[in-house]
């Protein structure tokens, strides 16, 4: 690795802790970010010459703070320095830095706070994600714009707006209590899941551009889990992301069309990610504190464990979706459960299960895709065609539309020979 690549990686990995600590000092996001930026510039100059510091985050916090304080001083240089200026001498700073390093709980809350700020309820999901990627992950506006498939200018504006809104909000800086910490944790977990989904819901032609979102979400989930080692739901979240992302290499065919789970080439699945995901879900289950992420991860684990599609334990998946329905009732969960039901009890039972959802999911692509598939399995081809047509009209990516078109083509093929016989 070259010097610059090495330093880039070091800055990226130190960023959440350093910006989080600087935010605690300055209580202002812009100042904290600018201080980190300045410290990074100094690192680029100093590290290649003097070698990397043992604790890059502590170095960046110390330097970032000193540079910012110097700037304040310079802007007031006409005024005499206050008497107690000794408090910001190099010596006490070095000591502070050591204390900083030792106080793991502090930096845990710093990072959590930094992530939590991005989850402000007034911010629409896309702004939360963009803000987190910029502030916590340190992706450039250009990188984020590329992943969101928008122009750099549009993304710049989106992030600026989000920052302005966050700046107006009251962010508590005192150490959170246990209840508050749990609330923050679950808000942050939801935001990380959003980042992942933003990357996951791509089509073949955009998958490469959006994959960094999935990878970043996994990195943030691991970071969160390292801070909260025994939180079963964070284990579940991390496992879920890993197990889903493990299938990424098999999700699209050469033409960029979506490949369904049953048809994927399982030898392309990333076994290392699967191993890590399975290990985490294993650990999480020991806590016997179930939660939605763990259940979804357990479902993903059952798919990952099946060497062939026909090995899939659909009965168990049906049960897990049942548990998820109780915890998080939602028509989408029921729709997913119906797919498992169709494998265990057949398409008729599955179709009956989703009929009541029609009204609430009347604009949902997957509802019509799944309904069409059940109808097709029952040989009700005309009705299936109507459902598939509706699905195409609701498709949001070209891959989704292409996938449904494949079903329609199959219907056409199936009905032709029968038609020929009738003649």
């Amino acid at each position, binding site marked *: *690795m070259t010097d610059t690549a090495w330093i880039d*990686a070091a800055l990226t990995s130190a960023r959440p802790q350093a910006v989080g600590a600087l935010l605690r000092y300055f209580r202002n996001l812009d100042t904290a970010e600018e201080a980190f930026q300045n410290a990074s510039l100094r690192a680029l100059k100093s590290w290649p010459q003097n070698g990397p510091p043992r604790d890059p985050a502590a170095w960046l916090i110390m330097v970032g703070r000193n540079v910012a304080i110097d700037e304040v001083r310079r802007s007031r240089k006409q005024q005499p320095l206050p008497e107690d200026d000794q408090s910001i001498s190099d010596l006490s700073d070095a000591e502070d830095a050591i204390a900083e390093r030792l106080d793991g709980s502090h930096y845990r809350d710093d990072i959590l706070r930094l992530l939590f700020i991005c989850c402000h309820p007034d911010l629409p999901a896309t702004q939360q994600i963009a803000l987190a990627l910029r502030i916590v992950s340190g992706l450039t506006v250009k990188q984020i714009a590329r992943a969101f498939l928008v122009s750099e200018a549009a993304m710049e504006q989106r992030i600026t707006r989000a920052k302005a809104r966050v700046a107006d909000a009251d962010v508590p800086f005192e150490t959170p209590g246990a209840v508050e910490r749990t609330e923050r944790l679950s808000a942050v977990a939801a935001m990380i899941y959003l980042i992942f989904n933003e990357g996951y819901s791509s089509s073949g032609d955009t998958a490469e551009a959006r994959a960094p979102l999935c990878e970043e979400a996994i*990195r943030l989930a691991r970071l969160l*889990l*390292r801070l909260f080692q025994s939180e079963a739901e964070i*284990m579940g979240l991390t496992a879920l992301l890993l197990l889903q992302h493990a299938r990424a290499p098999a999700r699209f065919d050469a033409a960029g069309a979506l490949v369904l789970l049953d048809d994927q080439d399982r030898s392309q699945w990333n076994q*290392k990610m699967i191993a890590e995901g399975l290990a985490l879900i294993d*650990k999480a289950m020991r806590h016997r504190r179930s939660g939605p992420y763990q259940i979804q991860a357990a479902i993903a684990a059952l798919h990952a464990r099946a060497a062939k599609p026909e090995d899939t334990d659909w009965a168990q998946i049906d049960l897990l979706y049942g548990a998820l329905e109780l915890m998080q009732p939602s028509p989408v969960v029921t729709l997913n459960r119906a797919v498992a039901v169709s494998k265990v009890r057949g398409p008729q039972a599955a179709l009956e299960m989703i009929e009541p959802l029609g009204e609430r999911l009347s604009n949902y692509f997957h509802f019509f895709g799944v309904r069409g598939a059940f109808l097709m399995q029952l040989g009700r081809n005309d009705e299936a065609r109507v459902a598939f047509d509706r699905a195409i009209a609701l498709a949001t990516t070209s891959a989704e539309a292409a996938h449904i078109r494949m079903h329609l083509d199959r219907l056409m093929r199936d009905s032709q020979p029968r038609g020929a016989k009738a003649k």
Partner: protein
Amino acid sequence: MLYAILCYHDEDFTGSWTKEQDAAVMQKLAVVQDKLTKQGRLGPVARLLPTTSATTLRKENPPVVLDGPYAETKEQLLGFYVVDCRNLDEALDVARELGAANPGGAYEIRPVGMFTPGSVAK
């Protein structure tokens, strides 16, 4: 004599490598490993999954199961090599070569007292 070379590194840092950077480091390490294999000196090699996947059993009475790695340190045990070397100098040479391929962190070099090749198929 067998030496264990224990690899310590900041996990946040190695986790920040891009896929390409990670692959490049692994490739360079493979060159060193290939050389040792040809010389018939390389024993088991392991790269461990992230410490978040670790569980610790504290042998108290009764034993306690804890989430996470045994030691909460800035640098974590991320993997190890077992290498046959004549002496410490040789073991250090191997560690230096590995270190050139994988910057940062530290290698702990520990002579192996007892060694069983084991029976796990790859």
